[in-house]
């Protein structure tokens, strides 16, 4: 059988023993449970916040409060345990929970139950990003767009941490100068070689290494966030833009 991705695990199989974050989030061990929630929130707080801002028309402060409240409630009520892998992607489930949550908050005009210090995220940064975030008529597409962006950002941060820890700052510098450059001013490989005073083949070596790791980190992170091999394969194709 031919494969054109490593989606589904390095040997084409979803790791059967891996306990995803969705499972760990319901763990009886408080430390394990909290760690899993932290990682889930890191992946999803921004799509939730932007969805509330762009789709639900919340203002900045209201969206902050609701984001906090949404995750606080999900943690308290253990909402994730209602998720059934195979019925829909976790992302879709979460968005449906969010729609439901928003409807409840709005129609009942309830006093918001604040999440307190649950989230320590940079809402101001997210707010600044909104100006560069294209809107979308389709709520599912909007949430997916922000989910995709958020996962890439987390993957990118992990790549930076890993390369710095490994003392590979040169690899990171070339990668950032090329792949994170303004799309209209992306330098050629020859220009990068001149700028960093290395041969052009070294530029492509550095880029190949960084891109391979980014892909692996991204897929590793996604694997934690999905409930089944099929969901992982489907979501990976969306994340990498290879969905047919």
């Amino acid at each position, binding site marked *: 059988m031919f494969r054109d991705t490593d989606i589904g695990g390095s040997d084409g199989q979803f790791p059967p023993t891996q306990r995803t974050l969705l499972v760990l989030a319901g763990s009886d061990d408080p430390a394990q449970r909290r760690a899993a929630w932290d990682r889930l929130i890191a992946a999803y707080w921004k799509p939730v916040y932007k969805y509330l801002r762009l789709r639900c028309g919340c203002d900045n402060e209201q969206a902050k409060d609701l984001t906090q409240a949404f995750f606080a409630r999900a943690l308290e009520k253990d909402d994730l345990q209602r998720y059934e892998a195979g019925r829909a992607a976790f992302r879709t489930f979460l968005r449906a929970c969010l729609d439901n949550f928003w409807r409840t908050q709005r129609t009942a005009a309830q006093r918001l139950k604040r999440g307190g210090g649950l989230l320590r995220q940079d809402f101001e940064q997210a707010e600044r990003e909104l100006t560069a975030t294209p809107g979308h008529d389709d709520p599912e597409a909007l949430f997916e767009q922000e989910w995709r962006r958020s996962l890439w950002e*987390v993957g990118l941060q992990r790549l930076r941490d890993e390369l710095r820890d490994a003392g590979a700052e040169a690899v990171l510098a070339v990668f950032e100068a090329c792949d994170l450059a303004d799309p209209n001013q992306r330098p050629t490989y020859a220009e990068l070689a001149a700028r960093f005073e290395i041969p052009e083949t070294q530029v492509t070596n550095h880029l190949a290494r960084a891109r391979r790791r980014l892909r692996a980190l991204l897929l590793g992170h996604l694997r934690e966030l999905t409930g089944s091999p099929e969901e992982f394969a489907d979501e990976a194709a969306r994340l990498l833009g290879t969905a047919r």
Partner: protein
Amino acid sequence: MTFLSDEQLRHLQQVTGHDLPEPERYRWIEQLGRGGMGTVHLAEDLPLERQVAIKVLHAHGADAAGTQRLLREARILAGLEHPGIVPIHDVGTLPDGRLFYVMQYVRGQRLDAFFTQEHTLGDRLTVFERICETVAFAHAAGVIHRDLKPANIMLGAFGEVRVLDWGIAKRLAESGDPSGALTTQSSAESEADSPTVTRATAAGTVVGTPGFMAPEQARGDLARVDERSDVFALGGVLYYLLTGRPPLTPEAFETLRAGGPLRIADVRQAAPHVPRALEAICGKALAAEPAGRYRSVAEMRCDVQQFRGGFAVSALREGPLDATARVLWKYRGFVLLVLAYILMRSLLLSWPA
């Protein structure tokens, strides 16, 4: 955490979105494009230390028929040795058994990007003539392109013109084989804004790009698709070079596909400064019926040359006034000189002694 714009995200997807096993002598650098049949990657040719472009079949299309199609495409390209056509270097199989072929990595800008910059009419026509030369060469070799459009034409830094993406090209000798050439899935690495259509119809299979597709192609009338279908598409490219838009709007294409009439806005309606002769050349190439078009690309190119030389073009029947105006314009230097001479003579003669 760094905010990623949509453009940055797309780029990251493009450069990390594949995980192909590496062939022995090449190393992947990044993905350049993705089409219905396969993906095109920038790679390094390790022994020769040069960059090349490699086209690989999609995993899901790597069956015997897909492999045969890609091989056929590679052979068509290999048979077309011309400066306007990307040379093919190698064919091989990946460790997972998928066929790939290696071609020259072409640097430059696409014709649609070129159009957004300031260029004279003369520059545009020079580019167009080179495109015609290349397509005429392919026709002489018995190959029609079937997907000519600005996105498939690349311009180099030194004025080179390359006609790309021969993925749905057809050897004229293959006509009458609808299960072969014409039912081929498109392999065009087209952008989302100008998609290559591959759509089954009752009459046959539609391949090409809506904005530039000849009526017989749009209707899936396979038996009538020949060199003149490329003439129509070239008429579309010329139309684009003169007006900045494709001749067929999406609505006009749908009408055409459904068997309705061909509706194209006049060139001079979109760009009033375009000379009438050029509008006529466009109009002739874009005729609804193949019989109404230029019989060959060479004939069309000849008309463009005639226009540039200040001669009459076959596409426009001139009245005496038009012909006089054209001749006066062509010899405007000489005419001005004669007028100046007559004026001077008149002044001297009328000067009081």
